[in-house]
């Protein structure tokens, strides 16, 4: 069925091409870099998850449960810093993006393979420096708000240096992807045929390149303030703490879309394959992706609705924030419509994709509560925000990443995981996740502020539900990664294209050869032509 001649030579692939640690560390192969990113990132995911469970155990009862306030503050801070800067910021682009982008557009590698390697090295260095923040017990929260962060210097300098280095890795990935997508598409792979995952990587890359330097500058100023007493943010030194908030959120709002957009791309890839239908409204999804990226630059002020801003500023930011909801809603409608009159199979990647839609609906709807000024005055800095954020990032970005990992697993490793166990793992995750975070919406409604070591007794029951949910959630992750980890080495051999996808990456052998293609493929049709009638003359998405 392959339209693109690729040798099914399983003896030679990117994994066994060269052996030994050094051959991986020095590799400039985008697939190896993607895999190394994945391994390192999952290690930090485990560390971040460990801190999350510590937090949840501590909150099981009011007052001290297993640790004091100082340890608790360190635990929730490190959970945030590790999960954000070392796991989900590199996230999907650095892992699946690196692995798949050149394969999906018919290129032999990214535009700057050495820069790609440098990006990974910087990320590892960033992780190493971040360990210092753990050792020195950072307790500022992942947001590093000044002036509190100006009084805690060793750990703050370590953590911000780590985030700064990670930011560079992110910028390099973004630049690399932009140039790759512009210049290295195979003949015939024009913009209207580009897979939607690539489109979302493109929108993400713009955000990475434009927004990340701002956090770099901000964190550098914070380091200078800590080390040399430069007075930019601390009022005692003549600085302005609100300036820090503006600069911090100018990056940290768009970064949420760096996390979530590629997950939307993955969902847009999975649903058509498992429905045997073209994605509904290809162009609308493209415009929505780029639109979300553009609007995301203009809404950072909603993180500061109660930060003493002028009324007019609050109105404007509220207005703009509402309009992120529109392109997001459009995407949801498109995904659901794709199922209509299809031939749907509920394999594990599809379970992840469809549960992404459900969880993201909750995340999006609760965003409305927070965009509305009068309700936000109540919800700001409460557990409602914690729940909303985790629905977006764990329910969105992480579930998307897992969907992608299951979907492309056989392509990456040439083996297949146990499908039944994958479904069981998904079920644990789904139940545990909702069990952990639905009660937090209620806690927020009732007024429970976030980052509290201790809490009034009336919140106890909901906290205990959340803690139990969190453990089921954690169990789900053990299950899922146990299943996948086993399959990396022992899984059944998989064919080249088990899901009969039309997308280019599936036309290579599994695992792909070291340099992807013997000859660069020539693309003659769009990616989603499932069930296309013989007489249909159009060859691009609508």
């Amino acid at each position, binding site marked *: 069925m392959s339209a693109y001649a690729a040798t099914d030579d399983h003896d030679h692939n990117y994994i066994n091409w060269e052996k030994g640690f050094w051959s991986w560390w020095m590799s400039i192969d985008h697939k190896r870099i993607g895999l190394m990113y994945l391994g390192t990132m999952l290690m930090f995911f485990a560390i971040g998850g460990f801190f999350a469970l510590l937090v949840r155990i501590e909150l099981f009862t009011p007052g001290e449960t297993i640790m004091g306030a100082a340890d608790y503050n360190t635990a929730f801070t490190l959970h945030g810093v590790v999960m954000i800067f070392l796991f989900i910021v590199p996230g999907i682009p650095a892992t699946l993006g690196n692995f798949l982008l050149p394969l999906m557009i018919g290129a032999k590698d990214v535009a700057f393979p050495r820069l790609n390697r440098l990006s990974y090295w910087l990320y590892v260095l960033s992780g190493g420096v971040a360990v210092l923040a753990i050792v020195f017990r950072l307790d500022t929260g992942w947001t590093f708000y000044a002036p509190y962060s100006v009084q805690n210097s060793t750990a703050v300098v370590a953590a911000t240096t780590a985030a700064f280095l990670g930011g560079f890795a992110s910028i390099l990935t973004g630049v690399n992807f932009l140039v790759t997508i512009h210049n290295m598409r195979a003949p015939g792979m024009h913009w209207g045929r580009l897979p939607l995952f690539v489109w979302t990587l493109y929108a993400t890359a713009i955000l990475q390149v434009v927004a990340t330097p701002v956090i770099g500058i901000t964190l550098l100023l914070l380091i200078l303030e800590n080390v040399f007493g430069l007075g930019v943010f601390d*009022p005692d030194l003549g600085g302005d703490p609100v300036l820090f908030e503006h600069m911090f959120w100018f990056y940290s709002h768009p970064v949420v879309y760096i996390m979530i957009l590629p997950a939307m791309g993955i969902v847009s890839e999975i649903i058509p394959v498992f429905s045997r239908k073209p994605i509904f409204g290809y162009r609308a999804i493209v415009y929505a992706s780029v639109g979300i990226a553009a609007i995301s630059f203009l809404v950072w002020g909603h993180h500061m609705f109660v930060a003493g801003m002028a009324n007019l500023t609050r109105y404007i930011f509220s207005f703009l924030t509402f*309009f992120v*909801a529109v392109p997001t809603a*459009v995407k949801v409608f498109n995904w659901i419509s794709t199922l209509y009159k299809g031939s749907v199979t509920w394999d594990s990647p599809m379970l992840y994709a469809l549960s992404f839609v459900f969880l993201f*609906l909750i995340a999006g709807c609760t965003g409305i509560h927070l965009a509305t000024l009068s309700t936000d005055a*109540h919800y700001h800095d409460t557990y409602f925000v914690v729940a909303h954020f985790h629905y977006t990032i764990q329910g969105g970005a992480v579930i998307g990443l897992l969907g992608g990992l299951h979907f492309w697993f056989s392509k990456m490793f040439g083996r297949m995981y146990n499908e039944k166990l994958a479904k069981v793992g998904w079920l644990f995750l789904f139940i545990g996740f909702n069990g952990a975070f639905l009660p937090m919406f209620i806690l927020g409604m009732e007024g429970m502020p976030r980052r509290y070591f201790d809490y009034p007794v009336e919140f106890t029951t909901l906290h205990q539900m959340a803690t139990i949910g969190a453990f089921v959630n954690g169990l789900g992750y053990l299950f899922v990664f146990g299943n996948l980890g086993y399959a990396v080495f022992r899984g059944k051999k998989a064919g080249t294209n088990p899901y009969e996808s039309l997308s280019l990456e599936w036309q290579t052998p599994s695992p792909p050869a070291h340099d992807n293609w013997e000859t660069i493929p020539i693309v003659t049709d769009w990616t989603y032509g499932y069930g296309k009638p013989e007489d249909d003359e159009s060859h691009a998405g609508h």
Partner: protein
Amino acid sequence: MFDLFTSMPEQAATWSADVDWLNDLITNLSVFFTVTLTGAMIYLGVKYRKKSEDQEVAYITHNAMLETVWTVVPTIICAVMFVYGIISYKEMRTPPSSAIEINVDAYSWRWDFTYPGGKKSTNTLVVPLGQPIRLIMTSHDVIHSFFIPAMRVKEDVYQGNYSYLWFEPIKLGEFHIFCAEYCGLQHSAMIGKVKVVTQEEYEDYLVDRKAGDAPQLSPAEAGKVLYTEKTCNTCHSLDGSQTLGPSFKGLFASKERKLADGTVVPIDENYIRESILQPQAKMVEGFSPIMPAFEGQLSEEDIANLIAYLKTL
């Protein structure tokens, strides 16, 4: 409104019910859309599940009409929500001029309150039922956030300027005050309570003083002393005559002030504060920049007292 899906605290302020109504509206719409769309997704996924290897599928790529509708409808819903949000919020941001003004000083980790008569309290804010209360808040260290769930209000508190909040209690009783901005070790212990009492109890509370306490000056009285002690009087008259500096007569009543560069600024606590500490930052039209800066020479309390005094002129 139908509120099965929400769980808000007691409604202790005039607008609590309005905020909750809007919150119910948004929540009900959210539940409706989430359930309907997820239901549709599961229905389609089951109805069109793969039943045979050669199952017929329809080649549908897009539908301009449908896509326009589902772009426009969410846009309208969002616009309506935005307007609702603004309407109820505008009230929250517009304190009546009759409001009782109480100063709030945030420290890691406590809240200090100073009432108009000079009475002070820590962590317990006593307010009379049915009276608008305006809080003028500043921090003495890191960022804090003043949050009363029952009143549905919250505002961050910074060192170096004032932030404001107001509410009108409609229910007697005690309600939580939380610090909502992470402020270090004892962040979760920085909690207090609002005690809403009757007008009489409030008045008794303000004069309640332990025997032997020195007679207390109100903030405005203390400010009056500072006015001469710090020689404000040499340049700022009280009778409207313009000498070296603008007169203080009717300062707060005039609401706005025209600056030398032509801009007009509102006269509020932050403006006065800045003009005391850094007089050259906003020069009033027609005056020379000759006033010395009082940065570092006045305590937070002095500044608050001076402002309280200026409001009486």
